């Protein structure tokens, strides 16, 4: 069967067809569509595959590991920075190993289309000593999922699959299986002590896993996804990984004149690289993300070959690659189009018209006119756009949850007023624990949980804490009189500004919850309601 699928969708379909029993994920561009595809899949519904969103990447990773412990196949999906959040269970899942196949799918975002950094997840794969896959095409992404589960179960380790934005968000025709594989039966290894990472057990596991590395590398050398394509001109060889392979091939419609080594499975297949450095005068290394292969090749076996890449300037040091970046590196002529036009202004994204965050910032700015030294610690979500004009309202944005904890640290240092602004989904992702720290010391901070009843930035997914925020704050020990709720609308400006003033003046931890639904999900809900009524 042929389907026109996004890379993300091909991955999801591949996992379902490989007998997936559960996907565990927190939304994050460019990985979100994988879980959404499974949520909309008929097969997943029939099989009751686990597909609800998790609170954050750490809870997702651990739940998936639990499913694997019981012998079933599980998938964890996240954007690259999510891997930082779940680094502890991720790295230690390399120590415990797995029972049912476990694939950790991480979508990197070079050029930072919608991210804080362009970290490269392949480093994490090496760090955790587990096999890593990096598809070049949507078809390969689909096919690899089944192979990844088989590999995971054969070597009893989780498998990291790394994609980048252009793979995740690009569509192509994919040939998919007619009949999906059955799910694994429930089973666990009653004798296995390696799941208990006490030093005594972990030391043994460490010896096993490090001992497995040679085999993992040999598998990479023999992998159908790592291809050495010889050619006559040995003045240069090109190593291209993942999506960079496509850009390379785009430069040479009639075939590359130089030997090409396509790498899509790690650990690094040193034998294949050794052949290239031995046979070619120079080697160009094209990889999407950071110079992961390049660094290792330079460090381990430079041989006599000259190594070129991102570290020597042939390719840009940062940002995404493109067909033109490869053309320049290879001395292939870049085609001339029209000159770029002066009458084009940048059009940055902005908060939607009518968005409740707008009213929150309007009120906050109004109040803070009287506190010129106030610092506002922002967080991650649509409301980060409050940095831009006309609001220019926040002074920091680092990682999910950092608003509350940074405000607390600033307050500890003597700052007042210290205001934190955080979204509802971000609060349940990583804000709750920080708020407990603040409440335990009655830190002098004002926390605004701007609740729009959804995870807005990533397209309006369910938010884990909806309906529970007051209870959560009370449960953490916040005094009732400093827990305030308001509807952010222009007509309520006097109420919101007064509330803000009072809580800033209060020398202790307070929480204000402005609550109004996101305009995008509101419109979607109205449409759905209309459609339902039309059906009746």
């Amino acid at each position, binding site marked *: 069967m042929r389907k026109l699928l996004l890379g993300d969708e091909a991955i999801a379909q591949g996992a379902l067809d490989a007998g997936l029993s559960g996907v565990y994920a927190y939304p994050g561009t460019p990985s979100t569509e994988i879980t959404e595809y499974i949520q909309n899949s008929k097969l997943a519904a029939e099989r009751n595959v686990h597909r609800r969103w998790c609170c954050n990447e750490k809870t997702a990773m651990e739940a998936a590991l639990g499913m694997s412990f019981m012998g079933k196949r599980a998938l964890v999906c996240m954007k690259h920075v999510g891997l930082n959040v779940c680094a502890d269970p991720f790295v230690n899942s390399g120590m415990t190993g797995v029972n049912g196949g476990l694939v950790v799918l991480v979508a990197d975002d070079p050029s930072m289309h919608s991210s804080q950094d362009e970290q490269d997840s392949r480093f994490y794969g090496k760090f955790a000593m587990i096999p890593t896959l990096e598809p070049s095409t949507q078809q390969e992404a689909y096919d690899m999922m089944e192979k990844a589960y088989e590999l995971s179960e054969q070597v009893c380790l989780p498998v990291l699959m790394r994609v980048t934005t252009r793979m995740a*968000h690009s569509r192509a025709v994919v040939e998919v299986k007619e009949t999906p594989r059955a799910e694994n039966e429930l089973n666990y290894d009653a004798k296995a002590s390696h799941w208990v990472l006490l030093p005594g057990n972990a030391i043994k596991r460490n010896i096993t896993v490090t001992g497995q590395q040679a085999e993992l590398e040999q598998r990479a050398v023999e992998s159908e996804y790592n291809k050495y394509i010889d050619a006559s001109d040995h003045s240069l060889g090109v190593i291209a990984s993942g999506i960079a392979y496509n850009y390379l091939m785009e430069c040479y419609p009639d075939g590359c004149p130089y030997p090409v080594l396509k790498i899509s499975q790690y650990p690094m297949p040193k034998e294949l690289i050794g052949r290239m450095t031995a046979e070619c005068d120079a080697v160009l290394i094209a990889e999407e993300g950071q110079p992961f292969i390049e660094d290792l090749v330079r460090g381990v076996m430079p041989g006599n070959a000259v190594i070129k890449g991102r570290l020597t300037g042939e390719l840009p040091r940062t940002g995404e690659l493109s067909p033109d970046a490869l053309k320049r590196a290879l001395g292939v002529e870049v085609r001339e*189009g*029209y000159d770029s036009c002066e009458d084009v202004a940048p059009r940055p994204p902005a908060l939607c018209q009518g968005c409740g965050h707008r009213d929150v910032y309007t009120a906050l700015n109004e109040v803070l006119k009287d506190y010129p030294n106030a610092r506002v610690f922002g967080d991650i979500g649509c409301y980060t756009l409050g940095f831009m004009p006309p609001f220019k309202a926040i002074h920091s944005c680092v990682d999910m949850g950092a608003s509350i904890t940074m405000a607390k640290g600033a307050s500890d240092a003597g700052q007042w007023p210290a205001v934190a602004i955080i979204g509802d989904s971000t609060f349940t992702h990583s804000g709750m624990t920080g708020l407990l720290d603040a409440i335990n010391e009655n830190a002098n901070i004002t926390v605004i949980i701007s609740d729009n009843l959804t995870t807005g930035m990533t397209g309006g997914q369910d938010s884990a804490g909806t309906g529970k925020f007051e209870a959560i704050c009370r449960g953490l020990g916040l005094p009732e009189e400093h827990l305030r709720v308001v509807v952010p609308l222009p007509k309520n400006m006097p109420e919101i500004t007064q509330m803000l003033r009072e809580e800033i003046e209060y020398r202790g931890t307070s929480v204000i919850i402005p609550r109004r639904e996101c305009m995008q999900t509101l419109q979607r809900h109205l449409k759905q309601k209309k459609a339902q009524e039309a059906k009746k």
Partner: protein
Amino acid sequence: MKTDIILCGVGGQGILSIATVIGEAAMHENLYIKQAEVHGMSQRGGDVQSNLRISSNPISSDLIALGSADVIISMEPMEALRYLPFLNKEGWIITSSKPFVNIPNYPDVDKVMADLNKVKNVIILDIEQLAQDNGIARSANVILLGAAQKALGIEYEKLENAIRRVFGRKGDAVVDANLKALAIGKEAQR
């Protein structure tokens, strides 16, 4: 055949529905397709674009190289200009004439029009007006598709059939409105 297409506009203008129809037509012809989309941050009133490549031979890159696009289909005139370095010298711009002004420094509209008219092959249409006049307000973007038909190198009937397949689920009225839009666009081709 091989056609490299850039679809562009402002977040929320519905460029992906044009891509869906082209993709459907291409898929039905067993052509190879690659379509890089933009999701996430840039959708909140920011600029959006999609690279759509269709070919009878396998396609390597998901992204279109500089100077290689055969067609730019734009829902907004200034956005069409943003991708000029990607347009090959014989390529076409098919664009809506109506500026979407949501930034304080939007350039002078006359200048934008003059820049567009400097391009060798360009079709500028007031698709919203045309759609309104014909009672198909919600199908304005398909007028652009009709106007791009020759430049795309896809037979007209094949686009019609693709529209029937893509919009069929939504009922005859929606299909008819989109077919009408396609026809209006076709008429506007030179």
